[in-house]
Each structure stands twice: as C-alpha cells, then as structure tokens.
C-alpha cells in the first residue's frame, strides 16, 4: 500500500479562518472540528468555565437534555466543547461527528443540523431572565463543578505529575500555565467575564476548521462560509494570528521532588532543543527521539525495562512546537537516580557516537508504518493535518517518508547533540526514598 500522497484542500475562507477538508468515502463517520486559538493569557479561566456553561442549553433548546436529544435524533451524532494547550496557544474546540449520508436512510443528512447546533451553542446561549449574559444559577453550578475538578486533579497522579513538571520546567513561559487557570481565578470570574470571553473567542481568535471523512467539501465550505465569511454571524476583521511558541534555551539542570501519597513514583525528565527549519533535520530529530525512547524499540525501554526491570514503561516524545524532549516513566522512587543517570548516559552516547544502523532501521520502519497508517482513520487523518497546519508545513505522509529515508547516522547524532538537559521531576509518596 502506498503512502498517502494527496494533501487536503486548505483555504482561507475569511481573514484568520482556515478551512481544511479531506473527503474520504471509506469512512462511515465525519470528523469535524472548529478550533478557536487564543494566547494562553489570563482569560483562559473564563474560556474554560464558559464552555460547560454554553453546553447547558441554548435559546432554542433551553435544557441540556434538549441538546442531547437532538443528537440522538440525529442518529447518535456527537458534539462537545473543550479547551486544551497547543504549544503556547489556548485552543477552544467545537468537536462533532456524525454518520455519513451513505449509511443513513435515503434522503437523510446530518451536516446542516450539526452546524446549526454548533452555532446555537456558541452564539445563542441561555440568557438570564433580567438581561444578564448568562443565568446566574447555572454559572454558579458550573463554577462549583469546575473548582471541584481542579481540586481533584492530583487524584490522577500521571496527569498531575505532568502538569507540575510543565509548571516547573516552563515557569516563566505560557506553556507552563495550566489551560484552566486556578481555583482562585475561576472563583473570581463574573458573568460578564464569561460573555467577554465568548465574544473574544468568536471575534478575535484564529480559527481552523478541519473536516475529514464522508463529506462533500463544497457543502462544508458553503456552511462554513455562511458562518465565518462576510455576512456570516461569526464574520470578523479583528482576528489575531497567534505568535509561535517560545523555544528558550535550557537552564542548568534542575531537579524537583514533590510528594503525594502514591505506591509508584512518576519520573519526568525534560530537555530543550531549538527546532530546525530544515526538513531533513526535523525528521532526524523525530527519529533520534524514537531511538532514545519512542516505544518498545527505544533504548530506554530496552535498558530500563527489559534489562534492569525498573519500569513497566518508559518513553520519550517530542513537543515539537516548544522544542522539548520529555522522558516519562512510572518507577520505584529509589530507582530515580539510576533512571536519571541512564537517560543522561543514553543521550550522551547518542550525541557522541550516534545510533547503530540497526537502531536507525528500526526507527525508520516504525515511522514508515505509522505514516502509512495515517490514512486509515478519519481521526488520525484529522490529527495529522491539524498538526501539519499548526507547524505550517503541510507535508504529505509520502513526502515525510521520502525525507526520513535519507536521514543518516551522523544526522541522528547531530540531532541528539541539540538536546540540553533542563529539568528532572519526581512525584513520589512521602515515605519513598529518592
């Protein structure tokens, strides 16, 4: 089977609004996402609280139950609003999926009704009875729930460890800020703050729309133009393109230990590097990370799990937009110094001596398989092209495969030389030795 050679259509349908369409009749469900990107600024708490508030109902469907029932009537369509961190952007996403027309009874189609539901959620929220932007009781309920969720974050030890690690490693960077803010910032929000955040999302954010699957691109373009282009309800000439994420150089190696009751310690080790503009160097960096710890073929897995039995899993991955390499594992706290030294040893060895040819071959084989499989699901295609758009590269899997095949042992070594150890973080139980 060949690598995917075709690119999706990518067009600007209004200032700051990009539409990416990839029709593919093999899939039964449409993957449809509208991303609204804003900086990771103080308003992120308001955006985070706004999203559950918007999902409580609309002017036309005043109860959450009404929205849910509309989705069930629409053959089990799904939609949701969420916020996350993408580089140093705060990304609010309206996400939907629905059954393709060819699997529905004759004459049925979900596209228009799903777009309508999305517009209702974002543009026609439930207002207060006395002209308030939102119903106060509803905001208080969702605020209380969000605060409880923030308080519960440490219960998920791996996620909490990662969040704390990022906060410490990227202390003075937007990337180190949590996407939801703090309990205090959420508690201080007013109804008017939420309305300002809603208007800011619709009027100022950089918008990327991704549609993949059994779609008719012209129908999607028509619907999205009606929404975002001139004359549409979300048309704006004030959209702000987000700045690229900062990629600072490493500090001298810092080590942090925090404690929470836990049977197993969480270990994270962050490195910095300066991302290259060169296509070959980018692939070399990806392959170097894979050789270090990209999976069961990685050195860290082989040594720390298979030879030393110190971890069930240990992996490394790149945060490409930020120029970071992160190693992560669940270990015995007392093994942390040994694991740290082994990571440093392997990074040093890769940079000084490069990989063995067999290691490079395995990493390339894995990458080739992944690139070939990109085209096998609508969600992986959407994720692939969304990332390429974020990087502003729009490389086809075929082009990436061709470039990766040219990477040499020397280029892997040069990529590893760019990794500068920055932060070691350990979250362990109070009684555990380090």
């Amino acid at each position, binding site marked *: *089977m060949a690598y995917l050679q075709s690119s999706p259509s990518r067009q600007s349908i209004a200032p700051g609004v990009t539409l990416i369409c990839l029709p593919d009749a*093999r*899939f*039964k*469900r449409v993957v449809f996402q509208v991303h609204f990107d804003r900086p990771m600024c103080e308003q992120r708490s308001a955006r985070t609280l706004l999203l*559950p508030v918007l999902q409580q109902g609309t002017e036309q469907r005043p*109860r*959450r*139950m009404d929205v*849910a*029932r509309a*989705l*069930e*009537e*629409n*053959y*089990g*369509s799904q939609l949701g609003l969420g916020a996350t961190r993408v580089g140093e952007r705060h990304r609010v996403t309206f996400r939907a999926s629905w*059954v*393709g027309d060819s*699997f*529905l009874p004759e004459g049925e189609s979900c596209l228009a009704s799903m777009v309508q539901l999305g517009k209702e959620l974002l543009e026609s929220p439930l207002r207060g009875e006395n002209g308030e932007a939102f119903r106060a009781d509803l905001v208080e309920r969702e605020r209380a*729930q969000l605060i*409880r969720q923030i*308080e*519960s974050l440490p*219960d998920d*030890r791996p996620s909490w460890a990662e969040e704390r690690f990022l906060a410490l490693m990227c202390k003075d960077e937007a990337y180190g800020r949590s996407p939801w803010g703090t309990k205090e910032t959420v508690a201080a929000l007013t109804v008017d703050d939420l309305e300002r955040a809603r208007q800011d999302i619709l009027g100022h954010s950089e918008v990327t729309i991704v549609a993949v699957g059994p779609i008719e691109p012209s129908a999607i373009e028509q619907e999205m133009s009606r929404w975002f282009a001139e004359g549409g309800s979300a048309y704006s000439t004030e959209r702000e393109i987000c700045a690229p994420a900062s990629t600072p150089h490493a500090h001298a190696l810092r080590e942090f230990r925090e404690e*929470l*009751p*836990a*049977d*197993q310690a969480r270990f994270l080790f962050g490195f910095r590097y300066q991302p290259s503009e060169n296509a070959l160097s980018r692939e070399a960096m990806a392959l170097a990370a894979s050789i270090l710890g990209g*999976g*069961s*073929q990685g050195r860290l*897995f082989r040594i720390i*799990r*298979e030879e030393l*039995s*110190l*971890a*069930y899993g240990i992996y490394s991955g790149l945060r490409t937009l930020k120029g970071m390499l992160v190693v992560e594992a*669940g*270990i*015995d706290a007392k093994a942390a110094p040994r694991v740290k030294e082994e990571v440093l040893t392997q990074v040093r060895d890769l940079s000084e001596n490069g990989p063995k040819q067999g290691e490079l071959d*395995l990493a*390339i*084989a*894995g*990458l*080739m*398989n*992944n690139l*070939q*499989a990109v*085209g*096998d*699901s*609508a969600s992986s295609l959407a994720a692939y092209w969304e990332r390429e758009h974020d990087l502003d590269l729009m490389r086809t899997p075929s082009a990436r495969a061709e470039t990766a095949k040219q990477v040499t042992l020397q280029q892997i070594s040069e990529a590893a030389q760019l990794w500068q150890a920055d932060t070691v973080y350990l979250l362990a139980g109070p009684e555990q030795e380090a």
Partner: protein
Amino acid sequence: MNITHTLKDPRMGEEIIFAEASNGMQVAVCPKRGFSAVSAHVGLRFGSTDTRFRSPEGAIVEVPDGSAHFLEHKLFEGRDEKVFDRFGAIGAQFNGGTGFRSTNYWFASSGRFGEGLDILMDFVQSPLITPERVEKEKGIIVQEVRSYEDSAPYRGIFLLHRAMYTNHPIRMTPGGAVSEVQRTTADDLQACFDAFYRPHQLRLVLAGDLIVDDVLAQVEALAVEARPGDAERLYPDEPTGPAAAQLDETFSVSRPHVWMGWRDKDGLGLGAQALRRRITSSLVLDLALDVSSPLHEELYLTGQTDDSLSYHYSSDSDWGHAVVSGLADDPEVFVKGVRWACQRLAEQGVSEVDFQRIKRASWGNVVSGIQTPGALAGTVLNSMLNEQEPFAVLDVLNDLTSDELTLRARELFDTAQSSVAILHS
C-alpha cells in the same frame, strides 16, 4: 483450510469469511479495501479468573492470581528472539491484553503483513517459559500492578466487585496482587499454557486489504499440530445475592469516589441471549442516566450528581452487573439520587417516544462505529469469543420493544441486588 461460511452485512458495509484450520483453530477474514494497515487479532477464552482448573489430562491445577496476565507477558518474550524486536523490525504496532475470561494478542502492519502473521502465530503457539525468564519479568509486572494500585477508578471498581460477589474470582484484579506475582513460577505458567492454549481454542481474525485465499493458506501453513482436549474451569459457588450492601476504603482522593452496582442473579452463558441482555441493559442505563434523560437532568440540577457520573454494563457467561460511578461530596446523596432515578424508570416504564429516539441513536452508532481494520478485527474476535454473531446487535435493535426494556429495567434495578463501594479520603 475449510471455509465454513460467509457473512455479508450491507447495513454495516462489511463482509466476513469464516474458516477452520486443520488443527481446529477458528479463523475469520474481513476484507477492507483501500486501507493501508492490516490487523491480526488472536484470542482465546482464558483469563484472570481461570486460576483453578482440571487439565485436559485430568489433573487439578491451582495457580496464583494474575497467572493469565503473567503468561501474556512471557509469550511476548518469544522463544529465540524477543517479540518486540521481531515486530519492531517490520515496523508493526502490537500489544496484548488479559481480561477476566479471555486473553488476546494483536498486531497491525502497513507492509510485510505476512511476516507479522508468522511472528504472531509463532509466539502464541510456541513459547519458551523458563524459571529465569519468569523471575526476570516479576520486576516489570510489579511496576505495572503498582501503577494500577495508584488509580482511584481501578481501586473503586474492584472494591465494588468485592461488595457484589462473595467468592467469584472477578473480585481479584487481572494482574493479581504483588505477593501473587512474586510467588508465580514457570511451572504455573506452563500448566496454564498447556491446558488452555490449544489450537482449537484459538480464534484468529484478520482484517484489511488482503487476498482471502492467500492469507488462509498462510494461516494453514503456520498451524501447529492439533492438541485435542479441553480444560475444565473450576469456579467457586457464588450466592445469587450481593456479598455486602456497602464497602468503604480509605484512599488518597480529594473527594469521595462512589461506585454502585446491581448484579444479575446469574449469567446467561454465552451467545445470543447474553448479547440481548447486554444490549437491553445498556439501553435502560442510557434511559435512566444519560444526559438526554429527564431523570439525569433532575439529579444534575439538584446537585446530586455532576459530570463525573458514568455507567456501564458488564457481563460474561456467569455474571452480569450494571455499574454507576461518580465523585460526590456526600456519597449518601449520590447513592440515594441514582437509586431514585433507576427505580423511577423501572416504575414509569419506557415510553415509545424515548425508545424510538434511543434506538435511532444506537443504530447510528453501531452502523458507523467500526471503521478501521483494527476496530473490525477486535469486534469480530470479541463476538467469536462470546459465541455471538458479529453485527447481530443490529438485529437485536430492530427486534426490541419498549416493553422489553421496561421489563429489563425492573429486573436489573432490584435494590436487593445492589451494592455500594466508596473510596474516602
């Protein structure tokens, strides 16, 4: 290779060719044109609950908890070369999983699928289990088990299992306790392999853009010699009612985690009846507790539950239970509210309007839910292991009535069959 029958489902747009190898292994091939990856899933009915059995040769065998999971780890070590290395060399993705009653192994590859199939059939049929290899793996498995032990959802569900069941082995976690892992021997694992990993017990599903005759010929060539005979699973007697009304445990959580269960008095075996019960149970849970339900709305608006509420139905041949969970500042309020909603549905019955709406949503989700070769292979394997016709869920949906759901709600939401488990800080 003997092709036994073909199943075509135009609603799903899928086709499955079923065959039987000369050693008795059951095989299904699902052609999916135009996809790059080909997936192979092999599984058998042997899981974490099978710790006491009579071997096909007649010996009574008892092994430590977690033995099925430990064996899965050991199979991945391969005989002469690690399975990781062999799959890695062809760039394939792979993994395995151990459930209460089954174990499965899979790989997916976009090229060199034939080599991958060689590897899969080799390590699943011909392992090398030695005391040294078993000892070496213990550290890795202990780390895996400990990572689960730190998870509140994992702790909570097994606390609930212990409340619902008195003797049933689903009280135990699939990985087993650390002490059980430490006492596992090579002989234990070899006994499990010899008793259960017999070719006629294996189910193999292949999905992707492949040539049916060619792949069946390859499977036949890889089939090891038949080993007739079946192990008999020896499960303890289980009372029909719950073991405890409520169990509480202290754990490091910021808010109490609450788990509620309603257990069926017994299982329905495998096959069509069990599938029907699973579908009707899932639908009545949706009707009581999904966001589209007025009962859910009442609980949510009055603060008795929040968005942490979730639910599912789980079953196998000899058990079935509904589980509802959530985080709650006041567990009593949560439990009372959820019980009220479930009871209310049972008392009011399922309206025709609600039934038709939820049936339409389920139909859409089923028809479009299986899209990739991997998802198709996994679904078909699961059906085969449960002795159910793949895609029969659509037939059940077509055949259901609102009255049947009402009856199922009344049967399922029996307070006398319910238990509660709470993790407190």
